[in-house]
């Protein structure tokens, strides 16, 4: 029983971090129908940046969030203007191809800049845990989860209570109408993409503390993120949170009760089952069938 509860605790803690990571991906999809496969690579890039800050300047990565997030925001904006912007009008599969290509470029660039070996930021608390009775809560996970919740809360506030947030929501409902009511669609799209990528800034800093990473790690992360947003409903932020917690727990359960070998299959199985049985996920909206997609 203890083991079960402990496994759930670990699953939820990591799920909280996953939720932050997935929020950016689902936001981008919801607004511009682009699946940003490069999100995993951007995450790792942010992790490398956080690691470098820690290594060279001694800045704790969780504080470093304040630096990496704006940095990734700028990068996201530039990426959008240079490449993703030109995708409008092309079929959906092209966006997957383009972002995949960007992911490869980023992976290669990271390898050249930092070498293809494992890196991890190791501030003092990363080996320690909080204890509550017979259960333990690894400190790094708790802090990471805390930062994740904070950033998600900020994101929620932004979407619900600022003009930009309203514009983003309008755009995700109907681009044409948004244009008609005066939303600068191009500009808002660029900002949305930038915001989505900015979340990887925070997320990357957190994972730099949690687990070792190397440039090739992005595949694992993007498959998890895809599984999460498919499960929660592509385009739904609450769905991303629910999906993230569910996936975190599912992974931990699989490792504990089945085998670590099958844990890597969990996101893919989720993707296949959900897309085939209930494509809109837990919370996504269903499209009108006669609309020509």
């Amino acid at each position: 029983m203890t083991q079960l509860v402990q496994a759930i605790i670990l699953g939820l803690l990591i799920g909280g971090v996953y939720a932050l990571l997935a929020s950016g991906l689902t936001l981008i999809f919801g607004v511009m129908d682009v699946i940003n496969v490069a999100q995993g690579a951007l995450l790792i890039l942010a992790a490398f940046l956080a690691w470098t800050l820690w290594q060279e300047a001694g800045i704790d990565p969780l504080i470093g969030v304040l630096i990496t997030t704006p940095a990734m925001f700028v990068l996201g904006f530039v990426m959008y203007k240079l490449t993703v912007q030109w995708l409008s009008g092309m079929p959906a599969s092209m966006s997957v191809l383009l972002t995949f290509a960007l992911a490869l470029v980023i992976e290669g660039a990271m390898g050249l800049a930092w070498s293809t070996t494992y890196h991890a930021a190791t501030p003092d608390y990363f080996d320690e845990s909080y204890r509550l009775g017979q259960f333990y809560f690894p400190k790094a996970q708790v802090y990471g989860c805390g930062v994740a919740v904070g950033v998600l809360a900020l994101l929620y506030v932004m979407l619900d209570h600022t003009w930009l947030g309203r514009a983003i929501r309008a755009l995700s409902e109907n681009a044409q109408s948004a244009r008609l009511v005066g939303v600068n669609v191009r500009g808002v799209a660029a900002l949305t993409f930038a915001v989505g990528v900015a979340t990887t800034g925070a997320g990357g800093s957190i994972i730099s503390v949690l687990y070792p990473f190397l440039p090739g790690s992005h595949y694992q992360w993007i498959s998890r993120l895809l599984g999460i947003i498919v499960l929660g409903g592509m385009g739904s932020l609450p769905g991303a949170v629910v999906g993230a917690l569910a996936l975190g727990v599912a992974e931990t359960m699989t490792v504990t009760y089945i085998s670590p070998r099958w844990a890597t299959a969990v996101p893919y199985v989720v993707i296949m089952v959900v897309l085939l049985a209930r494509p809109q996920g837990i919370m996504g909206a269903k499209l009108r069938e006669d609309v020509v997609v």
Partner: protein
Amino acid sequence: MSVAQSSARRFSPARLGGVIAAKPFGPVIAAAFVFLVLYPVVTDNLYYQNMIILSTLLAIMGSSWNIISGFTGYVSLGQSVFLGIGAYTTALFSLRVFDGASPFWFIPISAVVAGIFAAVVGSVLMRTRGHSFVILTIAFLFVMQIVTLNWSALTNGNHGLTLPLPMWDIAYQDWPFYYSLLGLLVLTVALAWWIRRTKFGMGLIAIREDENKAASVGVSTPVYKVLSFTASAVFIGAAGGIYAYYLTFIDPRGMFDIVVSVMIVLAVLLGGRGTLWGPVLGAFILEPLNEVTNNEIGGGNWRLVIFGSLLALVVLLLPRGIIPSVADLWARLRRRTDAAALVGARFEPPAPVRLPAADPAPPPSGRALLTVEGTEKRFGGLRALDGCSLTVEEGTITALIGPNGSGKTTLFNVVDGTMSADRGEVLFEGERIDKLPPWTRAHRGIGRTFQITRLFREMTVLENVVAPLRSFSWRRLGADAVSGPEAERAHELLAFVGMDRFADMQAKSLSFGQQKLVELAQILMLDPKLIMLDEPAGGINPTLIEHMAEMIRELNRQGKTFLIVEHNMPLVLSLCNPVLVLAAGTCICEGTPDEVQGDRAVLDAYLGEDYLAGQAAGA
């Protein structure tokens, strides 16, 4: 000859049969082939042989991918899964079942196994479209990798499998691999060529252009899609078997590798998606580039940067690929001044031609051809159809009118199968059809045009008219895309609607009115009993409207029943009888044009209570 027309010529299915000999590619391709065949005989340079072997392998995979993604439009980012399936099948048969027999014996089995996987998995995966499909193919690839890794009892898991060493004299080097792969490439390209010029291929292209439209004109899309996916897997499976033997050692990560899938896509996009030789060209550019980056620049990281950048550039700047772009350039260079393109010609409708009847028209029997009973359809909170019941009598030209938002197009969608109703029944010729898919309804004799015309834009007008299928038969899949009798009939239909001069033009270059006429010809090809027209007079000039009315009357004389949604009242009143009125999702009135004009409920629905009250007060 204009660019549009020459492009249409080059890429139309009928003409692609000639691409092998078409200038300027034909001689180049033949020369390259001769070179490849003779190369190992003339030299013993294993390094370049190896490079050619890997290029040929990529070309096989690219050509196969082209079938599902180029022709059918379903982009797969997991196609290398079949390489792994083929490799493991051959390895397992050679090692476990037949204890060290030459793997070459099992290549055909690899092909079959890959095909079976494709058919089974494809029938499930292809229920989705767009990005969902792409993601699912990636998921399938990784799931197979993980299963292969974990099922060690069968596959030896991460230890991998070691195949027997080659059993021939070392003097022959890698010839068996080289020539078997080259032969397989020839077969693959031949398959792609054959598909392209058959009805099957035309159906695939229709699916790519507009899947729902293809379904509504009688193409049984699930069967086509699964066949296409299977065709795109078998040769990759066979190549996988050869590749496994060539490597001598296979392991799950190497055999189920996403980067290989990305290379396949890049090769085909680079060379030209949807063309015959594009994948081969792309592969023979990409693989040597791969080798060169490995050896000269060295380092996996540069390889990633280079290939990633190349893919991004191709997607953004050269999405059509090399061959179509070069072909365009060539056509531009060779353009001769010619008669001005027909597109701008003033449209002169010829006198309506009597359509030669397929069967003698039976006298109108008065029975109900189409019956809709108690149909309901909701979109969230909106009730588009709310207990709608109506009947269309055989042999009539029935109008369906109603204010905007009354549910007319939704009703059409429910009848032709584009949507399914939440409740209610649809009967055609007395039989229920509401559970049938759109293509079966088309086969039964329902044809329908769309408010905004939907033609297959990349096909020519003639091909568009030939694409609809009156029935499905396995034999006919292999028939020529545009055969003699069909082409004749298509020309007749086009002549009937007055579009025969445009037969070789690409559909996308037509004007709106011209497209409407072609769409009509299209569904006439189905020889339908019930023709549903969604606003046929919308957006076209009065002369053409008259012409259309004449055609409708002519067809009606031949026994075709019409159900027309229209807002153009003069047309409705002069052409149609009876008239059905739809309002708020239900049929509120039915009768002759005069009866309907005076009906209070109808006036109420169109004009509103206030107006009527005002009228009553003012009168």
